[in-house]
């Protein structure tokens, strides 16, 4: 991935030098081996700090909203899942396509620091390098190579769009990742098999972990409202209390609001401080939409209407007997 890192730096420098864009968004290395954070550079020389490694997991497209309010022309590096989020923001008219130059980065998968820590490999770890599926752990004592994807995020293992779906330039050759469509919603099916009390136990236990920090909402590219209903006190819909019914209300409403718009990028599960598997909620709605109204992938085709803003005369439904709807 280092080769591409050099390309990233070169491209960013070139873009800033000849004023193609006012600003470039990329990632920068921090203190620790897993610490990579988004950075906005305006000077060509700052481009040297840009990197592309196994921890550039943050989706940069959501920052475009604020940047475009300052009507800057911005260059941005987008992975596959980021580009889906970008398209969803585009569809919601939150960003203007021609104010953005997209440099596409096919992505082999990002490493989950928790999984590295779980294996205890983080002792004295300085850096992690990755090329294709071979991961090298650089520690004080020396290097260690491990083949395989056992350290990748779960969402990367199930990734269906490794290559950006929208870009102006592609900085690497496309990657092929076959993912079986069949067990895409394994997690949902497992929960659906539970009895109704088990399911309620499972979810009320998950929801009670929530500390109402809104990280899942603020990271989500489908949640881009100017003023969220939960931030709006006189919407009279919910308060900040972390009591069971408010948490239930928040999570059901959030999943319902991103219905037909969630691009399945898995960021909500990654950032949740309490570790709630929020994508299992979104997956359920995606599964239902695919079953009831035909396969729909949010963020792939901007021109296609989202399932909940269109209809067919002979739609199935899941509440009348002849509704033919899936349960």
């Amino acid at each position, binding site marked *: 991935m280092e080769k591409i890192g050099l390309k990233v730096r070169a491209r960013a420098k070139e873009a800033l030098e000849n004023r193609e864009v006012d600003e470039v968004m990329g990632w920068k290395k921090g203190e620790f081996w897993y610490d990579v954070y988004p950075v906005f550079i305006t000077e060509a020389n700052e481009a040297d700090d840009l990197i592309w490694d196994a921890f550039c997991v943050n989706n940069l497209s959501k920052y475009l909203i604020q940047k475009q309010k300052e009507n800057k022309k911005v260059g941005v590096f987008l992975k596959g899942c980021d580009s889906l989020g970008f398209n969803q923001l585009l569809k*919601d*008219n*939150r960003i203007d396509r021609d104010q953005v130059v997209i440099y596409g980065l096919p992505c082999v998968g990002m490493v989950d620091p928790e999984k590295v820590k779980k294996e205890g490999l983080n002792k004295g770890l300085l850096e992690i390098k990755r090329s294709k599926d071979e991961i090298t752990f650089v520690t004080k004592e020396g290097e260690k190579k491990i083949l395989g994807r056992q350290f990748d995020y779960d969402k990367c293992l199930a990734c269906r769009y490794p290559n950006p779906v929208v870009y102006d330039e592609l900085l690497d050759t496309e990657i092929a990742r076959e993912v079986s469509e069949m067990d895409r919603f394994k997690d949902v099916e497992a929960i659906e098999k539970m009895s109704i009390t088990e399911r309620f136990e499972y979810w009320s236990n998950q929801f009670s972990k929530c500390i109402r920090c809104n990280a899942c909402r603020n990271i989500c590219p489908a949640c*881009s*409202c*100017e*003023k969220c*209903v939960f931030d*709006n006190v006189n919407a009279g819909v919910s308060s900040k209390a972390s009591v069971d019914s408010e948490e239930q209300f928040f999570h059901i409403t959030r999943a319902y609001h991103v219905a037909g718009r969630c691009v399945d990028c898995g960021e909500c599960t990654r950032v949740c401080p309490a570790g709630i598997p929020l994508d299992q909620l979104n997956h359920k709605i995606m599964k239902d939409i695919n079953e009831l109204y035909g396969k729909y992938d949010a963020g792939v085709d901007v021109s296609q209407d989202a399932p909940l*803003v269109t209809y067919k005369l002979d739609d199935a439904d899941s509440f009348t007997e002849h509704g033919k709807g899936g349960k």
Partner: protein
Amino acid sequence: MQRIGVFVCWCGTNIAGTVNIEKVIAAAGEMPGVVYAKDYQYMCSAVGQNLVKNTIKEQKLDRVVIASCSPRMHEATFRKTAKVAGLNPYLVEVANIREHCSWIHKNKEEATKKAIALTRAAVAKVALNTALIAGEIGVESRALVIGGGIAGIQTALDIAEAGYEVDIIEKSPSIGGKMAQIDKTFPTLDCSACILTPKMVDVSTHPNINIYTYSELENVKGYVGNFEVTMNQRARSVNMEKCIGCGICTDKCPSKKAKSEFEEGLRNRSAIYTPFPQAIPNVPVIDREACIKFKTGKCGLCETVCPAGAIEFSQEDTKITKKYGAIVVAIGYDIIALDKFGEYAYTNHQDVITSLEFERLTNAAGPTGGKLVRPSDHKKPKKVVFVQCVGSRDKTERGKTYCSKICCMYTAKHAMLIRDKYPDIETYVFYIDVRTPGKNFDEFHRRAVEEYGVNYIKGMVGKIFPDGEKLQVHGVDALTGDTIKIDADMVVLAAATKAKEDAEDLGRKLSISTDTNNFFTEAHPKLKPVETHCAGIYLAGACQGPKDIPETVAQASGAAAKAIGLLSKDKLVNNPCISEVDEKICSGCLACTKICPYDAITSKVITFNDHGKITKRVVAQVNKALCQGCGGCTVACRPGAIDIKGFTNKQILAEVDALCR
């Protein structure tokens, strides 16, 4: 602090019977914001309304809740009362404690508790009501009449007389409808053409009326006062201006095999034809299935013989889009298919005919020039049997459950005409009951029996089967209990009427509903027979239910009066409970624009001061005239930036809270 007045109605004993009014008043007094609670036997009466008016003034109420019958019934009444008392009419809410409470629950204690809950919900909602001013929308002073039968003609004439422009759209090549096919009309026996054709001529010559025949309605957009209708005028292949109606082409046309719809299939017609001689417009139409030129490309004889050079094979269907203020539906009725009635042998014997075919047989302009002959061998029949209620009053799925209303009268007319013209022909009528409810109707029927000697036999026909030249009719005389056998020469079946085939999908285009028999549902069976639930769309004639000509004409004038009432206003007051966008919250995702059935929401760019920086942003905006207040957009709007006045999110949440207390 709000000053809410609660008025509880007894509705005689309808509410007071199962709801303890005192308890409701006591409970209402306790509710937040309520400063006055009173009850009265009949709130909707003049005394009741005065009570409200005076209390509003005395107690300086700023909101009123009426706990009475359904708001669908008297919400408008109480809003008017509030307006007269100087209170904004939209600060009134009605709690439905009759249809939804006292009439449903017998246990007094439970009904009272529910009445209190419903009143509390209304108080919670009215507390959040805002004063609304009804907006105004322009009215297109032009009416559209769908269907060119007597109903459509009468409506168009009345509206045109009132000075408004009217368009008639008729599917078949000429106006006239079923009445043009009829020979004589009951009870006065005056000739149908003599009373219809003058009206048709009036319609064709009236400056305010334009007629679109041979055309169908594609789709309707818009709302009352501003309907935008797209019509598809099918190609006649004849130039309407040039054609002088000489008829040479119809004689010379070699293809004579097509069955004439107007003659109910009793006579053939040429490929280029006018349905009947007095057709308006008297311009022929080329039936492209039957025409040899269109089928094989050879022929084209009509073009050569036409003196005016009016034939234009290249003519295409044209789409016409026009704006209308009101629409009147007058598409008439059809006769049910008799193929399922095997016992009457209609399908396999030519001499078993329907009453409409009989009308054509006895009509002077008909296939036999008015001579009554058997369609099979053109001989004069000696015995004619009429069978009533064929498919009417029938609960099986072969027929229709309702009585078709006009068969008894026209069968009496047919029998009388036969006996009058050919006294030697015996006529028998098998009936269940003879229904003659109109003016001079029963006297007409008795004349047929007494003067003209028509034999009425109370009992149905069991079976008809060909027996050599004759038709054996097996019936029963329920009064004497004898089974009867008649060998008749001809049998006329009074077949049931049904709604037009395309009535349902026309209803869907106009978003008016049809009942289980596909007749259009009127707004109220007794009080609003010519209106529909959709403002601006009216009904006339048999498309709303089986009807004879006098009633149809009466309804047509009624519908015309309603349409004129609407068109006479240059400004229409529109429903103020429409949606509104809070631009501070709207993030411009425009999901609402995709939902709106009336395309009432568009986007606009606003500039605003974002903490010192002037920034531009796309937000949604609602066209007040187009929005009908359905509320679909409010759910698509996740942050709740768009809301419906009168049914805001907070109001409904307040109602939910109040009901769950």
